[in-house]
């Protein structure tokens, strides 16, 4: 069998550089997820509210996010808006903006689903016990909504981590780009490195996403 090209992995600081790239990917996802959850909670509550104009706006927003490929959004924000509006967006800021724009829409819809999935009678029996509106939400509705939400939002995190591989297209050096650079630099000495390094990148994504996804299904079962 030919060399798998794994020798390059431990040459110099290559492995550490890969881990650094992985951290970039995880950092973008984490920041975006936190923003998405916060804004998504607000959006989801507004979507279950009575304001029809707001609801229509959110529906259109959600459809746009679902239809547009994330890469096109990244290009629009990083290459497009920086020219048209003349602002100076770093690739990372653009990536977080796009990922939050996407994540907020998805979280908003998840929150909406979790809230409308809670039967009317839960609100009423809490009210009938003399609870104030704040107590009804804090003690009865939100704890149930969050239990339904956590597994779903964890899945959103793993999808975001996987999608961060796109940000190299706007010049960010994340794990996949680092691997590419290492492969390029060792093209002559170790031509098979493409296999070894990309395989390692794959394993790295797996090592991050698998525990997260296990946690999601554990919580789903526990709180079912």
């Amino acid at each position, binding site marked *: 069998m030919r060399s798998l090209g794994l020798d390059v992995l431990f040459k110099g600081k290559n492995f550490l550089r890969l881990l650094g790239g992985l951290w970039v990917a995880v950092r973008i996802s984490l920041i975006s997820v936190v923003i998405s959850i916060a804004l998504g909670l607000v959006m989801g509550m507004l979507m279950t509210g009575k304001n029809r104009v707001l609801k229509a706006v959110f529906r259109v927003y959600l459809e746009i996010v679902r239809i547009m490929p994330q890469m096109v959004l990244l290009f629009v924000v990083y290459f497009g808006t920086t020219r048209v509006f003349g602002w100076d967006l770093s690739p990372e800021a653009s990536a977080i903006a796009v990922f939050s724009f996407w994540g907020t829409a998805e979280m908003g819809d998840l929150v909406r689903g979790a809230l409308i999935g809670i039967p009317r009678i839960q609100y009423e029996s809490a*009210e*009938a016990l003399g*609870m104030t509106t704040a107590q009804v939400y804090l003690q*009865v509705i939100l704890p*149930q909504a969050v239990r339904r939400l956590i597994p779903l939002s964890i899945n959103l995190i793993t999808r975001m981590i996987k999608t961060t591989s796109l940000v190299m297209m706007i010049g960010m050096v994340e794990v996949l780009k680092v691997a590419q650079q290492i492969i390029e630099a060792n093209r002559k000495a170790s031509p098979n490195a493409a296999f070894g390094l990309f395989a390692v990148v794959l394993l790295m994504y797996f090592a991050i996403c698998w525990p997260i996804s296990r946690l999601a299904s554990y919580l789903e079962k526990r709180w079912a």
Partner: protein
Amino acid sequence: MDNALLRIEHLHKAYGPHVVLEDLDLTVDRGEVVVVIGPSGCGKSTLLRCVNALEDIQGGRVLLDGESVSRQAKDVARLRQKIGMVFQSYDLFPHKTILENVLLAPMKVQKRPRAEAEAEAMELLDRVGLADRRDDYPRQLSGGQKQRVAIVRALIMHPEILLLDEITAALDPEMVHEVLQVVLGLAKSGSTMLIVTHEMAFARAIADRVVFLEGGHIVEESREPKAFFDKPATERARQFLRTFEY
């Protein structure tokens, strides 16, 4: 002396053009058990929901101890503490254990210390035969057991009046009895109750007064439940009671 606890005066309730209750008057005295019967859609559940201000009303008023109960009132949450309600569907909080379900309102709403509330909760759960289920979750209980917990959850607030909205309608027949036994026990101990039910034998056994509601009006009212069920005065009530015979 006026012994009325609950006074419903000229109550008018409509959903848009559809009138559900029209100019309805009803009084419930302290310690009295009033049973409301009538065909589906006659407005009896809506009546209970109006008493607890779960519905907006379009006219008239509901007075508990002379205080007006309405959705708009700032202190509606305080007044609701005096009104216990048990619904048709099992409405326990699924994310809390049986004991936590019972303790939630006394601790959060009435700010009672846990030890004292828990002691009472256990005493009440014991009375309905469910003390050993304190750490179970609602999904582990049968429908009849859940309804008994729902009654305990209402009782621990020491309500002045208890509203029971078809509490056995969603239960399997063999579970109806265990729930109604609990309610009969409450009636014997002097609780004031306003009950909506389809169980005619139960209504006959427990009622101090029967109210027959149809089309948003009280068609017949009787302080002699046995006489009412044997020989109602109005033709409408007679027809209604006949639908329960085979």
